[in-house]
């Protein structure tokens, strides 16, 4: 029997993680993500999992990678400054194909910026923040319900693709309270174990190797250095590096349309909003307030890898409007993939989300 509750977004994040089998949390407190750590501290020990408050975010990221190699479904939660600190170890997780979930309840930046206000300024950091070429997966909830569902989904994506997966939420969704339906159970897609006769970094047909869990007798060597299929360092052969990094990139990027998760509303419209996160809420209000106008809405629940084909769901689109809580980040991806349509950036920073009036005025301007 599913349950109906009235719940905070950050709590929904924990509940979603626990439902998905998260059994290790390592973190360091930072506003506006702290409730995630606090609730994990309360709930994980009772659920047979492990909570540890690490000395900083670098350590938190290291700890969840270490835990993941023992087979744990591991997670951390942070916000901007902590996220920046995690970057080196996030790259390590990419290189070593370590599944893990990183929740970023975004706040205003740069630097300590606005701890208690909302922002979406880290969208490019989760894609390009660590050094080197890499692909990652990022989910973005626009409701408390989605916070629950997408956090759970993030674990499955992390395990399936063996890639660090981000829940790129923000203060608005993290701190709001909403009605949420908690299902009996959520889908759990466990990581595939390493098969007999395969090498620990030998990919299957999907580009993902089987997982050689520590303690299971595979004697795997895991290194952030460029390595061969055995996991042994091989750092100067251009072919070994190119083959590895391209595989790590393509195993995610080649599946971008399979990974995609979105809503497309009023697909005949000429003016189309493209949103991710809280912007979707305002657009929904605009659509509700102007039922007779054809206003299109594409809401992305997964922004990385960017599902560019979703833009083609709007064949009559003349204008794509992209409201976001930064000075224009995902709008570049939209613009990169449009073919002649006008792309309007609607940046907003300072801490508040767009109002319905602001967005409707943008529609009128396109008439």
């Amino acid at each position, binding site marked *: 029997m599913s349950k109906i509750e009235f719940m905070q977004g950050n709590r929904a994040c924990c509940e979603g993680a626990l439902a998905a089998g998260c*059994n*290790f949390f*390592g973190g360091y407190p930072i506003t506006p993500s702290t409730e995630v750590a606090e609730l994990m501290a309360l709930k994980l020990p009772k659920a047979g999992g*492990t909570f*540890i408050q*690490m*000395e*900083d975010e*670098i*350590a*938190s*990221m*290291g*700890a*969840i*990678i*270490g*835990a*993941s*190699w*023992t*087979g*744990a479904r*591991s997670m951390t939660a942070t916000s901007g400054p902590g996220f920046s600190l995690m970057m*080196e*170890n996030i790259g*390590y997780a990419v290189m070593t194909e370590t599944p893990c979930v990183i929740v970023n309840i975004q706040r205003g930046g740069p630097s300590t910026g606005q701890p208690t206000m909302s922002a979406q300024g880290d969208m490019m950091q989760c894609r390009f923040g660590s050094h080197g070429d890499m692909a990652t997966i990022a989910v973005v909830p626009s409701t408390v319900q989605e916070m629950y569902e997408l956090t759970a989904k993030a674990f499955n994506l992390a395990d399936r693709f063996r890639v660090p997966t981000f829940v790129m939420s923000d203060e608005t969704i993290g701190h709001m309270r909403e009605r949420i339906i908690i299902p009996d159970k959520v889908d759990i897609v466990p990581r595939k174990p390493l098969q007999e006769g395969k090498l620990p970094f030998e990919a299957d047909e999907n580009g993902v190797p089987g997982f*050689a869990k*520590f*303690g*299971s*007798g*595979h*004697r*795997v*060597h*895991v*290194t*952030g*250095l460029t390595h061969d299929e*055995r996991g*042994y*360092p091989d750092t100067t052969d251009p072919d070994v590096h190119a083959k590895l990094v391209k595989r790590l990139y393509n195993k995610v990027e080649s599946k971008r349309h399979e990974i995609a998760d979105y809503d497309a509303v009023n697909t005949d419209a000429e003016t189309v909003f493209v949103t991710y996160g809280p912007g979707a809420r305002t657009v929904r209000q605009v659509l509700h307030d102007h039922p007779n106008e054809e206003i299109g809405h594409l809401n992305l629940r997964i922004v990385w890898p960017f599902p560019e084909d979703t833009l083609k769901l709007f064949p009559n689109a003349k204008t794509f409007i992209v409201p976001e809580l930064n000075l224009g980040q995902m709008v570049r991806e939209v613009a990169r993939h449009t073919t002649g349509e006008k792309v309007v950036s609607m940046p907003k920073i300072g801490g508040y989300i767009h109002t319905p009036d602001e967005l409707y005025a943008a529609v009128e301007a396109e008439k």
Partner: protein
Amino acid sequence: MTTRVFEKWYREDRLPHIFCTGCGNGTVMNCAIKAVDMMQWEIDDTVFISGIGCSSRAPGYISTDSLHTTHGRALAFATGVKMANPDLNVVVFTGDGDLSAIGGNHFIHACRRNIDMTVICMNNMIYGMTGGQGSPCTPVGKISTTTPYGATEPVFDLADLAVAAGASHVARWTSYHTKELTKAIETGLATEGLSFIEAMVQCPTAYGRRNKLRQVTDQVEWMRTHAILLQKARRMEQEGKPIPEEHFTVGEFIHRQRPAMGVRR
């Protein structure tokens, strides 16, 4: 017997190793492997973890599950491994720079938590892998590429630091004192909580060459003659005799029972 131990624990297909001829790291690895074998630990239940540096390459040559992580962060990763699965035996290899400079915060907190693992620091008093820059353990007056006029900063006493921060077992020996070092590691492995073993090692390439210890044997001889047994040093202290310049203490600094984390249930 000896060969069998090495055949069992080393990855033959990873040889040759990257350590320079005469490097002390190999000796410390051998002592550690002997100690692990004496504990009769199973290969499949044992995990070696390291950060970045010459010293940190050690786990790559050992035939167990191993994590070669980011510079300075080995203890954070090790904390995750041990806390998520206390049934695994965890040993960390690290260098003086890896552990005490970039990794200093993780070091004191791992000791404070007293996580049930053994940390072996190969202290060559220099950054080896990056070519001989100064480390928090480069003695005053010694030459490195970033202290061309002689190091001026006071050094960290890593063993004292570990004791102060809360480790259960702390000892320091050198690559000359192989028997004592092996025994100290074995005691560390058997101790509940964090054991910190500092192993002073010769680095003929990055340290010795610049500090009038050009021959491998010169630096080993220097360690032999400059190491003062802890008991003797304490006696000298009581008698008001100063420890001669450039000398350092070796021995068991502490062996105690303290509440520990990540202990096998």
